[in-house]
């Protein structure tokens, strides 16, 4: 269940110290010396070049690494104060919900409803309560009409909504979403981001969103972590991270709104107190400057 408001400012949701991991039979580290702290109630975007270790790090958050994938894990990782190495996956799953990059790897039941109910059944939630939670999750994810359908007959975008519904039904303290909207159209993606943000704000759920499309996601976050070659290379507030030279050189997908501000401030007198990360931001700056 979501923590009390006062408590969530102080306790770390996720804390990693000097975390290094190597997959079985792999020759190089998938992540190396990763240290980070994510506070309860934060909305974090985790980004970086493809193959940089984002998905691997997410697998450490719910114990899939090391318990399922095996391999060699060094350093420390704690989730809501629990040591991941000591706790079994089923215990960690109560606290951390992971939405996979590929929804087909997550869905298996014969109906959408059963897939969404599965986690709750395993937690031993009473029937009435379960039905309520499933209804709420289906509605929140906008898929009430797909209830009786078979997940494997659905489109990629619809499957992603089912995967999200099955995680939010459990109302975990931490939600880790690995490119959860990649198959969705932009309007659908924004709807899902809005839902995630609402869950973050109203229930205090800590969100870790793995995303390349920062033009769509930047407005929702208060903390951006950038990885490269298995390491954390940038970690801070979105404006600072996205406007840094390093982010641009790394090839992080800087929103066009931010880029437009950057190229204009280099060659004109356009200056603002804060670098914009959204279209509204740059529009306001330009409007102010252009209004006589």
């Amino acid at each position, binding site marked *: 269940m979501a923590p009390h408001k006062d408590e969530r400012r102080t306790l770390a949701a996720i804390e990693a110290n000097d975390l290094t991991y190597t*997959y079985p039979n*792999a020759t190089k580290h998938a992540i190396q010396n990763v240290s980070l702290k994510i506070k309860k109630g934060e909305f974090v975007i985790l*980004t*970086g*070049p*493809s*193959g940089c270790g984002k*998905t691997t790090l997410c697998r450490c958050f719910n114990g899939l690494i090391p318990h399922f994938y095996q391999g060699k894990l060094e350093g420390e990782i704690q989730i809501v104060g629990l040591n991941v190495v000591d706790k079994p996956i089923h215990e960690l799953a109560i606290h951390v919900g992971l939405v996979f*990059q*590929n929804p*087909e790897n997550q869905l298996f039941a014969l109906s959408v409803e059963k897939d969404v109910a599965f986690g709750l059944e395993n937690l031993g939630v009473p029937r009435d309560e379960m039905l309520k939670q499933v209804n709420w999750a289906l509605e929140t994810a906008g898929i009430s009409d797909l209830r009786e359908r078979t997940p494997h*007959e659905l*489109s*990629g*975008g*619809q499957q992603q909504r089912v995967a999200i519904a099955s995680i939010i039904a459990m109302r975990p303290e931490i939600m880790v979403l690995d*490119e959860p909207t*990649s*198959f*969705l*159209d*932009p*309007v*659908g*993606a*924004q709807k899902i981001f809005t839902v995630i943000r609402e869950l973050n704000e109203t229930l205090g759920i800590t969100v870790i969103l793995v995303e*390349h*499309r920062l*033009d*769509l996601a930047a407005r929702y976050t208060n903390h951006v972590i950038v990885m490269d070659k298995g390491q954390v290379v940038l970690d801070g507030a979105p404006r600072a991270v996205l406007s840094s030279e390093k982010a641009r050189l790394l*090839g*992080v*997908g*800087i*929103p*066009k*709104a931010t*880029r*437009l501000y950057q*190229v*204009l401030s280099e*060659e*004109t*007198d*356009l200056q603002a107190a804060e670098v914009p990360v959204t*279209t509204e931001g*740059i*529009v306001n700056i*330009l*409007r102010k*400057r*252009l209004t*006589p």
Partner: protein
Amino acid sequence: MIAVENVYFTYPIGIEALKGVSLTIEDGEFIAIMGQNGAGKTTLIKHFNGLLKPTRGDILVDGVNTKKTSVAKLAQTVGFVFQNPDTQLFCETVEDEVAFALKNFGFKKATIEKRIVWALNLLGLTEYRKTSPFMLSGGERKRVALASVLAWNPKVVVLDEPTIGQDYQQKEKLRQFIIQLNTQGKTVVIVTHDVEFVADCNPRVILMSEGKIVGDDVGKKIFADFNLLTQASIVPPQITKVFMELRDFGFPPDVVDLYEAREILQRRLNKT
């Protein structure tokens, strides 16, 4: 040339995914098909190599009706890269994956080797040649799927959501690469939700909604048509959105490119 003539398609479960689509794709064109989930985009492109046959209407690939030929035959002309690489990949190494179709098409051993080296290098996969595709990241697997199709050098390349899981640099490479293919005279058709990618490429855009084509024009014009975009669940690219919001200052509404935007704004800012 691909001619789509009044095509209707109904899936066995009864869902009518295409409702009278007509479209001509000339040789050497670069087309992006966009639209909301369930609009029929993937259904349409699966007709181009005969994976699906129209319930009504016809598809002609270089004059050949897809109903009267095999997928194996069509695949030599039309290369198809799936949305989800995991539905495409199955070999034990990246190298085998790329070699698979080449062997099936009966290429010589030396040619196969050359093609593998070329395709892996092109997509930045050379270091993974002996690696299992399933050990790679989602974005990397997507590139393996692409490499395995490009290796046999089809005349038409159809890519379903090629930018999924790709970081900015990979996308930029993919963009240059598509433009290169296109310049060499290949027909490129992509299905994508990635408006920023399409804005950077500025191809001919086909907008679909509920099984029909609702818009067909260059990207610049499509993105400036707010009502059309809303109908197709597309959000305009950020640059276009900025110019739409600032139209009361007399800026043109159809700007998609960052550098064009800079020129226009710079001129105005230096004047006032």
